[in-house]
């Protein structure tokens, strides 16, 4: 068939295009290592990490990290579930959800802080809002993918809720549970990162420890964090969930000061986020609108355009670096390549890598290598290569091989990689949007992506400018998402599994 002959060619074309764009992006990218002794610093860091000082761990920060994540996911997944029902039918719901999830948790937190201060409400909503958008989309996909045969035999006149609960839910419950548990893992990473901007989670103490060079304390905090994530299946169970939610509610941090939430909210909506020319001038006065134009123009030319360009440069390089990293790493987690003993070790390595929040990794690398794009690229590609590598390893072991299949490099290059390449591209194209969202955020750490300008606007208390910039990141994210979807469709890999929590299709991607 023609399409069958075109497919391998277009895999190559797409891959080469991405490679070419990334190589071109290397030209304007700033990759200097400005630190004079990066290796000495990194060695001190590793030294401290392997000698964790557990007495230094602030136990409450661990409790708050879990509590924020549990309640954030409860609200986010609950709202997401309700939104999942009209998701497929209404374009407006899809758009709202897309916007909710295109804004990064940290951006949400920076905005929410203006109203709720450094309180539990900021932490919880910063998780719940984007997660509602993500959960709505994924839950609706899971429900769409479900088997409809039970629904067809439901007697005529059954109510919508009964039909859903008895005929559809049993079929999708396992997938929903699986995905929600995965979201909780993500939420723990997100809450940790929220500590970096001042919420009382583990990230608060990690940031201090890294900044002050107390690497033993940082090592202990990280060890506790990996332990929490690694053991999540033990403490998150059907029976423990209500207990977890109630306990989290009771244990939320007491806010130190009392924020005047209502007046702050009113001020935020009616003043802070309204572009300043509109705030000051009369709406019917044409001069107000020309001032608005004069206000918007420099934001677009001096902040949005250069910021978006740098964000794309970072994202494209990181995406290709992720691809290369994943291709190198995945044999480590495959039994066929790494052996019976090597595979578990490889898995532990990649689970640790994927549990490490990219933002924290970027923060640490920026401290030790100096301010350039290089630490950001490394952080993004290490984290994402860990995830894609882990998934590919699982697929590699799921492939049916002939008894006389070659071994080693021959097997890898001539059989495993070609057979899995479609799946590999599907994962990467899916992660493209996530990498872009994270690239924008890294600006807060000093790389000149869109987040850099958001940070500047917030520190100048120009919340209106920050909102415009965040809206620009949303548009950029939505464009990349649409492009990724179109490419996946064109390559006919849009039905392959893409999510980390998704069960594998046996022998997929051939």
């Amino acid at each position, binding site marked *: 068939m023609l399409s069958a002959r075109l497919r391998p060619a277009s895999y190559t074309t797409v891959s080469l295009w991405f490679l070419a764009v990334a190589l071109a992006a290397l030209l304007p990218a700033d990759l200097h290592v*400005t*630190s*004079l*002794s990066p290796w000495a610093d990194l060695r001190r860091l590793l030294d401290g990490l392997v000698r964790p000082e557990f007495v230094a761990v602030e136990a409450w920060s661990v409790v708050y990290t879990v509590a924020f994540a549990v*309640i954030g996911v*409860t*609200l986010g997944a*609950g*709202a997401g579930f*309700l939104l999942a*029902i009209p998701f497929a039918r209404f374009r407006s719901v899809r758009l709202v959800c897309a916007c909710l999830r295109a804004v990064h948790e940290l951006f949400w937190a920076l905005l929410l*802080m*203006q*109203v709720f*201060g*450094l*309180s*539990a*409400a900021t932490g*919880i909503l910063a998780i719940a809002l984007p997660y509602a958008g993500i959960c709505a989309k994924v839950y609706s996909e899971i429900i769409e993918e479900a088997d409809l045969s039970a629904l067809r035999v439901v007697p005529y006149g059954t*109510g*919508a*809720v*009964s039909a859903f609960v008895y005929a559809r839910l049993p079929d999708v419950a396992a997938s929903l549970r699986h995905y929600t548990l995965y979201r909780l893992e993500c939420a723990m990473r997100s809450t940790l990162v929220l500590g*970096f*901007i*001042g919420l009382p989670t583990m990230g*608060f103490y990690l*940031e*201090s420890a890294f*900044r*002050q060079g107390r690497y033993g304390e940082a090592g202990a905090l990280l060890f506790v964090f990996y332990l929490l994530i690694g053991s999540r299946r033990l403490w998150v169970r059907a029976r423990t969930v209500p207990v977890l939610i109630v306990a989290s*509610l*009771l244990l*939320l*941090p*007491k*806010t*130190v*000061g*009392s*924020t*005047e*939430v209502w007046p*702050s909210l009113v001020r935020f909506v009616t003043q802070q986020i309204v572009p*300043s020319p509109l705030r000051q001038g009369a709406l019917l006065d044409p001069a107000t609108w020309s001032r608005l134009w004069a206000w918007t123009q420099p934001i677009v030319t001096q902040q949005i355009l250069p910021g978006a360009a740098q964000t794309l440069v970072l994202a494209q390089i990181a995406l290709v670096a992720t691809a290369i990293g994943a291709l190198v790493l995945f044999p480590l987690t495959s039994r066929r390549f790494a052996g019976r003993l090597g595979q578990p070790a490889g898995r532990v390595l990649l689970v640790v890598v994927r549990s490490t929040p990219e933002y924290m990794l970027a923060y640490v690398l920026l401290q030790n290598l*100096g*301010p350039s794009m290089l630490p950001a690229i490394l952080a993004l590609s290490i984290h994402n290569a860990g995830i894609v590598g882990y998934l590919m390893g699982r697929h590699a072991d799921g492939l049916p091989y002939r008894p006389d299949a070659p071994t080693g490099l021959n097997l890898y290059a001539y059989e495993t990689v070609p057979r899995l390449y479609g799946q590999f591209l599907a994962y990467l194209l899916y992660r493209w949007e996530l990498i872009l969202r994270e690239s924008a955020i890294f600006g807060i750490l*000093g790389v000149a992506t869109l987040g850099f300008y958001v*940070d*500047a606007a*917030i*520190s*100048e*208390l120009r919340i209106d400018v920050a909102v415009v910039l965040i809206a620009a990141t949303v548009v950029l994210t939505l464009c990349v998402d649409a492009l990724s979807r179109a490419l996946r469709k064109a390559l006919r890999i849009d039905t392959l599994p893409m999510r980390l929590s998704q069960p594998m299709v046996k022998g997929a991607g051939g």
Partner: protein
Amino acid sequence: MSGWARAIGVFAMLATVVAGGAVQAQNSERPAFVFTGIPDQDEARLVERYGRVASYLQQKLGVPVRYLPVKNYSSAVTAFSNGEVQLAWFGGFTGVQARRLVPGSQALAQGAEDAAFRTYFIANTRLGLVKAADFPRGTAGRTFTFGARSSTSGRLMPEYFIRQAFPDKTPDEVYARIGYSGEHSRTIQLVQSGVFDLGAVDYTVWDLDTKAGRVDPEKVNVIWESPPFANNQWSVRGDVDHTWGKGFSDKLRQALLGMSDPVLLAPFGRSKFVPVTNDAYAPLIAVGKTSGMLD
């Protein structure tokens, strides 16, 4: 569809309970008098500084006093403007930002050193520069780090002096790379380790870090001392008299001015606190407007 409506109703109830719990958690405690300070230097020193101030103020004011730690300058301003804290140790510029947002708020006291504050321009010694009286114009084209974005001695004033020395140019046109270290101790470390060639730093933090043995004179030195400007101050919200009784802000001012114990003053790098008014910071507003940091 009434089934869905019911399901949504149940969820809304659950959400209300959860949100109510969160608000409950916020309001259950008796309102304490809360203060914060900009995180302008080494965090260990901040913990020491504000821990002592909290117990001192609690004793003098007779109300529970709590310190709210923040991670950056803008969080301190936000906490002040949305009423999370009533008192804050601000830099000159963050004080201006905060008081513009809170009508009735006032500057109570500044350090004796803050009336004529200075910025040090520091350089890595491999540049081979020595201290001079004139602005170091020859450093154009090097890399330069400010402190926090809204720091007075680390950003606002140094940027102003750079713009004066190079008319019609912005700092990122003068220098090859501009960074924002976040705080002064970090600025010193970044210039010392060579990540940046030059930096602008609060002179009191430079002195404190030098005394603490964290500055290596072989690697970093002061190359220029700026003209004087007004800097840090304690600012209080206008509504404290309403909440804690008439005369509370006067009592607070007296307590701040009465800090004479060197144990309290040393972590600030100040000899004593003196009275100040909002007007002392009018020049900073003008500077903020010329560099576009204020509207």
